[in-house]
């Protein structure tokens, strides 16, 4: 049984081919890094998996269920949660409010329970709130709990984005460039957190432009260029391959 599997996934925008015949397998428990120069189709990959765009051709399976062509909320309910490249937040909420809104999937009882404020709901809510706090601690956001989310620094907003994805208890977490716009220390800080998340048993698919970051975190990498997969393997080995170096020539290389 495969965990997340992409079979010959193609996505075109008009004449532009953003992804072409991508075959990809994500194994449970790993941190799979996807790298590639700008415009190589990395973000499109996440958008296609999470259902934001439909695949033009090809199929995506998750735990042996076909998820391509499903609505984003269905895919999220199946356990695939993504973050966004830019800081996408719930406008005007505080950190804790955004976390509580995001904890939507954690409640298993029906809305009626919360409407009538029953015991079941109170217990469940307490449990979820406890988990929210735990997560906030894990990602070092505790001091900002009651601050407006859009007032946080860039790095913390990125972390909040990850926290908001994590509260849904994903089976697989899709991270879209979690370290953009950060300096090296900040990036390493985030990498550390991602590792912690992975240790809790969450599979991570991370898309990154910055090779250095990826070498530090990924257990396996896939290199994309012009929408096709050009290499796959363990990070150190892949980075030394000729075709990868060529694809990256002229851009920042390790």
């Amino acid at each position, binding site marked *: 049984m495969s965990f997340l599997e992409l079979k010959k996934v193609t996505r075109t925008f008009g004449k532009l081919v953003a992804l072409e015949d991508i075959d990809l397998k994500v194994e449970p428990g790993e941190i799979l890094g996807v790298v590639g120069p700008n415009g190589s189709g990395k973000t499109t990959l996440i958008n296609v998996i999470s259902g934001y765009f439909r695949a033009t051709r090809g199929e995506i399976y998750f735990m042996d269920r076909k998820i391509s062509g499903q609505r984003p*909320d269905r895919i999220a309910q199946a356990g695939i949660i993504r973050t966004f490249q830019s800081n996408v937040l719930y406008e*005007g909420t505080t950190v804790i409010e955004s976390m509580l809104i*995001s904890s*939507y999937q954690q409640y298993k009882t029906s809305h009626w329970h919360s*409407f009538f404020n029953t015991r079941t709901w109170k217990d469940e809510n307490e449990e979820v709130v406890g988990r929210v706090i735990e997560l906030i601690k894990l990602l070092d956001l505790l001091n900002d709990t*009651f601050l407006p989310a859009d007032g946080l620094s860039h790095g913390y907003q990125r972390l909040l984005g990850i926290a908001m994805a994590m509260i849904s208890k994903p089976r697989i977490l899709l991270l879209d460039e979690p370290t953009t716009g950060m300096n090296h220390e900040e990036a390493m800080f985030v990498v550390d957190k991602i590792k912690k998340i992975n240790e809790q048993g969450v599979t991570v698919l991370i898309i990154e432009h910055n090779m250095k970051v990826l070498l530090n975190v990924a257990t396996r990498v896939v290199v994309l260029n012009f929408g096709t997969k050009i290499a796959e393997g363990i990070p150190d080995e892949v980075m030394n391959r000729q075709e990868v170096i060529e694809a990256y020539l002229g851009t920042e290389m390790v």
Partner: protein
Amino acid sequence: MMTYIDYKNVVPKTIIALGVLLIALVPVLTANEATLSMLILSGIWSVVVMGFTLVLRAGQFSLGQAAFMAIGGYTSAILTVQMSWSFWPAFLMAGLVSGLVALLVGMVVLRVGGIYFSIITLALCEVVRIIAQQWESVTRGTRGLITSQPNPINLGFYEINFFINSVPYFYLTLGLVALTGLVFWRIGESRLGRTFAGVALNQVLAEHQGMYLMRYRVIAFTVAGVFTGLAGTLYAHFLTVLTPTMLGLWQSIQILIMSIVGGIGSLVGGPIVGSFILYIFGSYLTRLEIYGIQQLLFGAVVVLVLLFLPKGTGLVDLWGKFWTKVIWREKEFEMDEGEE
């Protein structure tokens, strides 16, 4: 250190309870028909405005709420006048029909967001008006349907008679306002309110966290539709005549203004305050004897309120976003205070 406002204490429960009690006792204090009818009508509008605010809080800006009032009003008027039902079943039926229409229309129309949705609902509002105007065999067109007050209820020891004065009707309206307020307050407090906030504040994010946008928009629209329909019935039967022009685009705009001026930070407080203040203000203005000055002052006040309230908040938000915002409370997090 954690610093935040605990909104719970901004408006103590006792003050709210006292306010409700005071309003409930109005008929004892005064039997003035004009005052009573003013309160009844503002109560009816406040129900409708609450419905509008609920839809708004789910992220959709509806300009067709008056249409649901009209649907409710016409349903019960037609049932009582043309088919000689008694008031009470017709009243419930009106809520049902209006909710059903909201459900069906919502399932088609709520896919579209933003300004497009507003214009669709605006068009729907006009369509309802035109149908009411032209379907003369049922609605009597522009001449309007003459409705009657509800039948007396005999409780054995006491007869509630709606024909003598407006007091029973006042309590009927108060009951509806209280019921709507209670339901909406619970919606705001519950998980549903949180989800509405998510859907409204960021569609894409909400969708990628597993919320099915359409489901929650339709829920909000339908709940609003049911209560708006009930309010429409009360409106029609209180004014004893229902013509197509009474509930149109114009009224939808008034509903919107009442909601915004009252404040959309709260599902219950804002709409009630907004509609009572603006309606009562408006009806005092009609006593002025200069043509046009009512509208002039009404418009001026609306604009001034919007201008001078800080950064687009309504009247109620001024003293705290109490009651229904997706809030969290001190006691839920007490466990953490020790650790810091």
